[in-house]
Every structure is written in structure tokens, then in C-alpha cells.
């Protein structure tokens, strides 16, 4: 199968959906001729024109609000938020407006909108361009949240997001834009709420999101050398969350680590760990461990930044300690 980058995969998903449905359009800063700073959208304005690949002023709440109103009245916007960190700027439009409109109207108004943005540290971009803020939006009822972990996932999840009648926030890892993966030529979609078992194992479950899936897979390879068989699961979407697949795995392995690049406190790792504790307590041989990003603003210096996020060695080390029965107190 051919291999393409995550960036190309997103571009293809958008182009295919825009060809399929003329109501789909892209709106955001420098999305047209510039194709975004990451060049993910290059070529789209040439095919679809500036009427459907819409450059805006630097006004995130403004274009997010416009997209919400456009979605409510018969179009299907894909909002391009250049950095995930800017999500703070659009919180009212996303969380008070987009997320609640269907509910507050008693089901009469829909907001079929995709917010595509990114996450991920270790790009030496410091505290305001490196955050992973998906837990913020996953907290809000009415928003779906997708976390692609490869080019294949990015394309399939994006196409599903665009066809969804609800507001969907999709977080791409900005360090993975140039990572290649096999992506079929023919069309496919990836359903929301169906986790992907990336690697089977019987000793411990590693549940990981976005680029942390790679970290978990590398950790699993390290552990395999020690004779520990780790199962790696990518939930794909954290809202809706495929609890069933996670619980099934944990009931089999009796141990789990949840790995995510958002801050550890009050985050995705804690939420998933709590659900496993509540629903699989009697199957567990050890506490479910959380591994998130350190609870510090992301530092600039490489010497500091690299220690803030989970690594394969760190995951493997914690897995060994869990396997040995040692109680672990998260930092």
C-alpha cells in the first residue's frame, strides 16, 4: 500500500469531502494561498477557490462564531485553528454556543462543524504553542473529540467528522505532520467510538491517545524483550469513548497505564483510569496508572521540555513496576 504523510492524509480527506458535498468549506487564518504554516492545506484553494477556502483576519472568536452560525443555517464548516493553544480564545463560541445549541433548542438546531486544530510539545515552541488541550473540550457535553494517531487515522477520522451533524473537535499532533503511514487509495471512514487494538498482549494494557500511541507501541517492544506482553489500545475518539473495548482488555490483563499528552491533573488519563476503576475494579491487580504531561507550562529549553512528556522508556519502566506489584505513586 502507498504511504503518505499525516499532512497529505488530512489534505486528501478535506478535498474528498469538499468534492462530495458543496456545503463543506474551510475557514481560518492563512488557509488559502499559504495553506497554513504547516502546509497541510496546500493546493485546496486552487481547486475550490477562495469562496470555500476562506482566509480570515487574525480573529479566532470571530471566525469561530461565524462558523457556528454558518453551520446552524445549512453549511458544513471546517474551522482551522492554527494552534491548539488558541482554543482559549474561542471558548465561548465553542462551549457556550456550538456545544449547547442542539440541546438548548430541544433538538431543533444542529451545528455540523469541525474544528481542526493540533496538540503536542517538544517542538521547542514554548508554553503558548505546545499545549495539548483536548481535556478542556472533552469536558463539555455536546462536543465530540477525535485524536488521530497516524496518517491513516487522520484521514478516516476527518472524513467521519465532516459527515457528523455535531460539533467535532479533531486534534492532530503537529509533530506528526510529516510522519508517513500506509493509507489506501480507496475511500474509507473510521467510525467514532470504536477503539483500535494496535497490539495484543495479555500482561498489561497500555491505553494511549494521539502520538502517545507510538510511545506506547515502542514501550511494548521494550517490554516484550523482558517477556512482558503489553496490549496497546488507541481509543481514537475520547468523546464518545469506547469503554467496552478498554474494559475487555483490562479484564484480561488486570493492569493498565493510560498515556496522554494533556496535563495529568484533571485530565484524560484520570478520567479513563476512574472509569476502569469503577467498572473493572475486581479484575485489577494494581491501581490504574496515569501518565500525562507534567503539570507545568511547557518550557522552552530542550533540556526541560523533553522531561515533561511521557516517553517509551518511562512507560516501560512504570509497566515493569506495576508488573512487579510495586505500588506506584504518580509524581
Amino acid at each position: 500500500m502507498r504511504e503518505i504523510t499525516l499532512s497529505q492524509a488530512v489534505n486528501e480527506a478535506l478535498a474528498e469531502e469538499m468534492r462530495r458535498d458543496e456545503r463543506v468549506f474551510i475557514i481560518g487564518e492563512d488557509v488559502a494561498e499559504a495553506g497554513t504554516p504547516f502546509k497541510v492545506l496546500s493546493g485546496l484553494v486552487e481547486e475550490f477557490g477562495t469562496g470555500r477556502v476562506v482566509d480570515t483576519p487574525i480573529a479566532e472568536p470571530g471566525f469561530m462564531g461565524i462558523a457556528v452560525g454558518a453551520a446552524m443555517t445549512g453549511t458544513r464548516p471546517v474551522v482551522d485553528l492554527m494552534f491548539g493553544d488558541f482554543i482559549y480564545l474561542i471558548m465561548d463560541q465553542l462551549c457556550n454556543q456550538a456545544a449547547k445549541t442542539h440541546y438548548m433548542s430541544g433538538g431543533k438546531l444542529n451545528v455540523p462543524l469541525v474544528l481542526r486544530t493540533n496538540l503536542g510539545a517538544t517542538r521547542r515552541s514554548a508554553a503558548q504553542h505546545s499545549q495539548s488541550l483536548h481535556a478542556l473540550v472533552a469536558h463539555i457535553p455536546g462536543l465530540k473529540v477525535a485524536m488521530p494517531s497516524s496518517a491513516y487515522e487522520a484521514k478516516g477520522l476527518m472524513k467521519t467528522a465532516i459527515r457528523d451533524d455535531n460539533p467535532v473537535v479533531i486534534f492532530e499532533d503537529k509533530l506528526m505532520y510529516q510522519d508517513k503511514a500506509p493509507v489506501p487509495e480507496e475511500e474509507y471512514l473510521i467510525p467514532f467510538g470504536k477503539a483500535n487494538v494496535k497490539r495484543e498482549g495479555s500482561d498489561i494494557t497500555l491505553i494511549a491517545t494521539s502520538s502517545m500511541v507510538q510511545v506506547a507501541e515502542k514501550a511494548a517492544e521494550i517490554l516484550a524483550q523482558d517477556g512482558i506482553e503489553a496490549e496497546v489500545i488507541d481509543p481514537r475518539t475520547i468523546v464518545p469513548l469506547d469503554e467496552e473495548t478498554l474494559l475487555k482488555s483490562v479484564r484480561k490483563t488486570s493492569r493498565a497505564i493510560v498515556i496522554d499528552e494533556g496535563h495529568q491533573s484533571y485530565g484524560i488519563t484520570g478520567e479513563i483510569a476512574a472509569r476502569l476503576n469503577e467498572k473493572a475494579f475486581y479484575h485489577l491487580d494494581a491501581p490504574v496508572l496515569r501518565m500525562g504531561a507534567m503539570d507545568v507550562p511547557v518550557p522552552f529549553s530542550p533540556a526541560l521540555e523533553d522531561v515533561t512528556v511521557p516517553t517509551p522508556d518511562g512507560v516501560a519502566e512504570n509497566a515493569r513496576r506495576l508488573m512487579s506489584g510495586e505500588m506506584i505513586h504518580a509524581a
Partner: protein
Amino acid sequence: MAKTKTNTEDYLRMYRQMVRIRTFEDNANQLYLSAKMPGLTHMYSGEEAVAVGICEALKFTDKITSTHRGHGHCVAKGAEFKEMFCELLGKEEGYCRGKGGSMHIADQSNGNLGANAIVGGSMGIATGSAFTAKMLGKDDVTVCFFGDGATAQGLMYEVMNMAALWNLPVIYACENNGYSEYTKTEEIAAGSITARAEAFGIEAHQVDGQDVLAVNALTQKLVERARKGEGPFFLELMTYRYHGHHVGDINREYYRSKDEEKDWKENRDPIIRFRTWLVSEGVATEDEIEAMNAEIKKDAEAAVDYALNAKYPDVSEVDMHVFTDIKHALA
């Protein structure tokens, strides 16, 4: 008063709609005072000529966005008393199945995109609705209602900038009732409000918001021009709020005098003014007007009675309408 609509039927409908709004509010206030209504509500009384003058210039398919003080817009855009009182009381037959209440009341089927409880929160939505019309080649016009208080929100300037850049068919209707909650407008608004729109190259008008014919005449012209792609436009409608910020705001003398309220109610009331004009022009007799008032009063009382006895939504509806495609979000 400026003449605009040319036949008796139009004049009488405008009068009727203004009286319907006042009557709705009088009943809503009574429901609050008699502790039959959950929560609070913000009365539109005194501002009727604004909503009616504008909505009577719109087609059924044109869109509006409304505010926390939204009952007037809802009635003026064609809603019925029964479903409105049911919504106010949190009943199943309410326009939003009891999930919105006073601050989110809207008859969505008439092009009302919802009342918004975030001050200025709907400016993006209205502009986005106009974006849809342009993108899909429809001739719909959208009117964005907001108060003078909302002119302090940054979102307004972001979306006016884009609306002007893209010539969107949106009319920003600023209902200047003199008070931003409990503070005089002059204490929160520097310079001129219309000049702010003019800074973006948006044609702006100030109009007497107590004169329904003046409001209607101006709006008709602007709507027609907006349909032809000459928008956006900005209106500052000088009006007055008879009640407090909300129904619980009873003792108001620390921010405005009783003499001032008396002057507006006795000398500038939009309904009394229009009624006097209708009689002096021979459009209707005093008897005909009294009969109309009595009929509306009876309709409202019947609707209140119906709503008080209507059933609440089944508790199983609590997690419905969070998403369009997941019937029960918590199941």
C-alpha cells in the same frame, strides 16, 4: 410618524404584534411575581417598536438572532403564545422542549436562530448565517439583535470587520435602551456607537426606536439593499426598558430615577404613539383597538392557563439532544 407600510392590514398587524409582546410580558411578569415561573426573566416592555418594526420588514425565511431579552423578538418573528409560555414554564410543549427557558426561547421554524444568554454571544452566529446566504447563493438577510451593553464585547468588532470585508447580508441592530444591566450606557460606551460601525465602512443609522413606522421604513430599505449584496448595515435604535435588567430588579433608583421612567412611559410609549396615529389617520377606531387589545389579553390568558396545566418533559429527556445521533448521551 413616517409613513411606510401602505395598507390597513399591515398597520394593524404591527399594532397587534406590539400589543402581543406587551401582553406576553405582563403575563410573564405576573408568573414571576406569583412564583409560578422557574428562574428569572428579562422584560422587553417598552422596546416593542424595535422588534416589530424590524421583523415586519423581514420575510419568513430571513433569519434573526436574539438576546437574553428575547421574548419580543420571538413574538415579532412569528411565534405563538402557547409554545412560548410552555417554554417559559419548562414544559414539554415549549419551543425548546423546556430545555431553553426564557433566555433561549425561539421558534426555530420561523428563522429565529435562538436567544443567547451571553451578552454579544450571537454576533458570530448572525454573521455566519449571512455567510451561509452568500455562500449558497440565497437571498436571506439576517438581523442580529443586541443591546448597547454588547457593544463593549470584542466579538462584535471581529465579525463586523469580516462582514464588511465580505459584504455579508447582515444587519446589526443595536437596541440602545440606555442601560447596560445596572449601569448607564454613557458610563460604558466611549464615543459614538454608530461611528464604530462606520470605522469598518459599514453604513450606520440612528433611529427613534419608539417609532415603529420609522424603524420599519428604514429597515425595509436596508433589507432590500442587503439582499442585493450592499450589506452589511448597522442600526442604533434609541429605546427604553420599562422594567429592570430582569424581573427581580425592582429597586432601581440607585441607577435611574422614577421620573425618567415615567417620562418614557407617558410621553414616548411606542404602543400609545402608534395607537394615537392609527386613530387620527382613520386606520382604526378606538373601539376596534380596544377589541383587539381585549382579544389579545384573552389569548394570552388562555395560553398561560394551558401552559400551567401542561406536562413537564419526562425525566428520561434529560440526556436527549446532547448529540444529534446518540439518543441518550449517558446510556
